[in-house]
């Protein structure tokens, strides 16, 4: 039996994350906590989160979990979901700019306003607008598996996952990018390093393929 800790820093729907993991973690212990000692005792760590970047950064600080994340990153499998991905980058444009954890060099940017579907833009008819896209990017989008990864096991390349976000990650290097999505532009939606996998979409809300990703995570040895 292993211990999977879901970090609770007061931001977001932790119940769905913990219940989704429980549904695939046969007999494993799933703990939702902000306690540094319990987090340190985890075999695997999941950091979810939703809401505004500034609130998430403040909440991580208030809950005293920033140091836990910094210290434990790389030592055991860690999964960031949605804001749990964005806070890993260097800086976010949200809330007039906020510094993040800088564990993954890069920027978090807002989608253009207005945002257009450039795949349908016809250069010869510039007056006929390409289809306008809504922000937040909300719903089921195809994820291209930019690189093979143990967490994609059993999931089709191009499978749809559920997204709900207005800001997207732009890592400085493509090296860590294992999943991409196209919504007005192509952007990274899944990044991986040794013992780290983080995604913009919500596996806990992505039906069968989302549960498969979580199942893969709880048996992942951390290699890329």
């Amino acid at each position, binding site marked *: 039996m292993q211990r999977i800790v879901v970090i609770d820093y007061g931001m977001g729907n932790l119940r*769905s994350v913990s219940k989704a993991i429980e*549904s695939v973690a046969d007999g494993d212990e799933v703990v939702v906590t902000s306690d540094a000692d319990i987090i340190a005792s985890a075999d695997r760590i999941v950091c979810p989160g939703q809401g*505004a970047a500034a609130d998430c950064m403040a909440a991580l600080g208030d809950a005293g979990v920033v140091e836990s994340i910094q210290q434990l990153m790389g030592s055991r499998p860690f999964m960031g979901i949605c804001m749990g991905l964005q806070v890993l980058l260097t800086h976010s444009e949200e809330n007039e700019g906020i510094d993040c954890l800088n564990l993954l060099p890069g920027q978090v940017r807002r989608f253009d306003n207005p945002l257009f579907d450039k795949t349908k833009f016809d250069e010869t008819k510039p007056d006929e607008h390409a289809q306008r*896209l809504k922000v*937040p990017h*909300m*719903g089921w989008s195809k994820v291209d598996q930019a690189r093979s990864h143990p967490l994609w096991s059993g999931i089709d390349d191009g499978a749809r996952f*559920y997204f*709900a976000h207005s800001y997207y990650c732009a890592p400085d290097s493509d090296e860590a990018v294992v999943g991409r999505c196209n919504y007005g532009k192509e952007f990274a939606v899944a990044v991986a390093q040794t013992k780290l996998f983080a995604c913009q979409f919500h596996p806990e809300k992505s039906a069968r393929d989302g549960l498969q990703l979580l199942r893969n995570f709880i048996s992942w040895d951390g290699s890329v």
Partner: protein
Amino acid sequence: MGLAKRIIPCLDVDAGRVVKGVKFLDIRDAGDPVSVARGYNEAGADEITFLDITASSDNRETMYNVVEQVASEVFIPLTVGGGIRAVSDVRTLLNAGADKVSINTAAVHNPELVREASDKVGSQCIVVAIDSKCVSEPGETPRWEIFTHGGRKPTGIDTVEWAIKMAELGAGELLLTSMDRDGTKIGFDLGVTKAVSDAVEIPVIASGGVGELQHLVDGVVKGGADAVLAASIFHFGEFAIGEAKAFMQAQGIEVRI
């Protein structure tokens, strides 16, 4: 482009049981919320919406329990609306396992609630439900207004202006119901759907009036909706979710199959 248009079955819940009123009056029992939600998940629904129509606030707890049970075994997005009056109601529902909370009448009485709630929990969790009726005479330029109390009480507020205001206050999505179409099965009010969808940057869910699969297509293609919501055509087995998606896909609409 990659983003699928969503099909959202809507379950009206009264004291813990799923019901669907025709024009909010004639109510038939359509089952237990958890098993209905599970069935819709298996059938390929992209999201599920619960509207708590319980009159008595004593039964709030019942709804929280329903949400907890559904969120424990159905892993697709779950929107819950009905009776939301304060940010604390929003938080309680999100903590019970809802992904989005839909604010309706309370937004009309206190628009700042939308701002407070989206500031606290993020826009992506806040849906504003707009109950609208056409108030112009045939032949006039179409105009729509917001109604409360199940479509009985006019407010004098212009639907499109209201939609823009709600988006500015931080709504992440709009659930637009044509009260004069709800339960009629003659199709969405495409005029108001298009007017609202064009006016705001945020996604719009079309609701009210679906009777055939072509109506779903029209809501997306002619109404510009990002998602389509329906109840009775799915609840009473007239059409399956998969059938609806296949129909939409055959007409060139991107769906999640």
